[in-house]
């Protein structure tokens, strides 16, 4: 189309706008379809393997037969240690950063440390866990070594989520409490933390999701034993690592699909819980 002013234009502004809008819609559709396709593919292929005995029986013949019960137990133990240690430290750090810290070089170093830790590749954290916890402290391949290594990984997320949650507590509430003669700490425990609890919980739940799926961190810290642990100094094999071994050693593709489905379902449950808590506290705010 050539318009009267002599402007050479193949497409009008309006057409370009429409095409661009279409492309933007398409890009979102592509992104969502990746997600749906990956989850759908794994679940369709693996759902047939899932039954009570797959979930509740111990693996036999390196996992080629039997179930994945021991790996599920392994994952739950590791995640429990990680969460139990990460939550108090992470929430404490967030309280300090929001309520106590002033803008000075030390505070900036602290936030830099959190950002830095968040970026460190999981395998490097795994190497450190191996060198420090397993060898140097002599904890060996154990639930404790693996769980603490996982804590190193999820700590920055716990700090950030708690910071976000604490930031949203209205100033007037805090000032009201302080004006009534409460000390700073009383105000934090009785006013700030209850108000921030839903946000912190959501963050912790999402951190749990990260910890459940993590493999590289625990490979060389938690061990790969398929026996049930009796104490936190026993080694375990986490479910994602079990999946990796099933695949990489060619033990059983069916069992691998089944393990992948269980992992995905765990993550889905975690996400639904996080959304539920967000909704609940939004409703309460209104």
């Amino acid at each position: 189309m050539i318009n009267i002013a002599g402007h050479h234009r193949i497409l009008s502004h309006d057409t370009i706008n429409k095409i661009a809008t279409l492309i933007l819609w398409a890009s979102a559709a592509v992104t969502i379809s990746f997600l749906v396709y990956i989850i759908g593919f794994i679940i369709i292929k693996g759902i047939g393997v899932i039954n009570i005995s797959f979930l509740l029986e111990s693996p036999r013949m390196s996992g080629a037969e039997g179930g994945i019960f021991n790996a599920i137990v392994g994952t739950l133990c590791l995640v429990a240690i990680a969460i139990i240690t990460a939550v108090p430290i992470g929430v404490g750090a967030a309280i300090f950063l929001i309520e106590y810290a002033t803008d000075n070089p030390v505070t900036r170093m602290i936030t830099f440390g959190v950002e830095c830790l968040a970026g460190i590749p999981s395998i490097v954290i795994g190497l450190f866990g191996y060198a420090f916890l397993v060898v140097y402290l002599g904890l060996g391949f154990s639930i404790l070594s693996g769980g603490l290594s996982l804590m190193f990984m999820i700590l920055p997320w716990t700090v950030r989520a708690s910071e976000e949650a604490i930031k949203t507590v209205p100033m007037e509430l805090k000032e009201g409490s302080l004006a009534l003669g409460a000390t700073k700490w009383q105000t934090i425990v009785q006013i700030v933390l209850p108000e921030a609890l839903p946000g912190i919980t959501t963050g912790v739940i999402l951190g749990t999701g990260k910890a459940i799926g993590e493999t590289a961190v625990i490979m060389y810290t938690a061990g790969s034993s398929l026996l049930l642990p009796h104490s936190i100094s026993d080694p375990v094999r986490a479910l994602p690592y079990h999946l990796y071994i099933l695949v990489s050693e060619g033990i059983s593709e069916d069992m691998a699909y089944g393990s992948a489905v269980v992992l995905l379902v765990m993550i889905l449950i975690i996400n639904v819980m996080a959304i539920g808590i967000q909704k609940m506290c939004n409703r309460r705010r209104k």
Partner: protein
Amino acid sequence: MKNNERIIESLLFLSAITALVIVSMILIFLLKEGGPFLLRTGISDFILGMKWNPDPVAGEPAYGIFPMIVGSVYIATGSLIFAVPLGVSCAVFLVEVAPIWVQSVIRRGIELLVGIPSVVLGFFGLVLLVPLIREYFGGYGFSILAGSIILGIMALPHIISISADAIAAVPNAHKEASYALGATRWHTIWNVTLPSAKSGIIAAVILGMGNSIGETMAVLMVAGNSTVLPEPIIDVLDPVMTMTANIVIGMNYATGEYQEALFATGIILFLMIVILNGISYHMLRSGKIIQ
């Protein structure tokens, strides 16, 4: 009472510096385990060496990780070529175009995509993508291409959410001025919004690069883990080994000097990531996209 408050404040301070202490200890332990080896071998011989043969049947072992640095950067770049255009247009869509209900679907979708364990994505790549590539493009299937696509899918949610924050931070007044001049929505996005959000988007790309270089399990399962450079170098159907995969595979049976070489690989990886993240963090801070 006053004393209690003191004690509490110092306890809180201790939890606050934990992350910093862990980062320092990671660096110290990497240097302790890998540093002496690095100095003995020579940093440039280690980084630029072409041959990796840590456990030879006969003769001297060779520790050169250049092919793996190339492998890591290659796959990470490939993942971004795929994830950046898609991610940025998805972010524009999310902020500027999408109706509210679509926005919430996409946000939930992104959260879920972040949650998919990398070993599950790697498994998906292994059973679906690798055979597809082998069938339609030829070659071995385990390849730079497979690694780039899987890592691209992993990078997508991060690129989308940071770019969306950057786009949302563009002042409304700028966009309104553009509309008032008669520009269409697309013209405004292209000429006003995207240029203003540029530094945030670049920061997202750099962060994505760091994340992709540090990714381990997925790439280990689909990239083929070959310790020689692709031949010719542009052949994206050739397998490569990344630095992360090198550590995972080696740690299985490495002892002595071989293990030190893996820690040295960890040092290089650590430095690359900290530098990339540092740049990105600085850009996001100075652009006021994060506080």
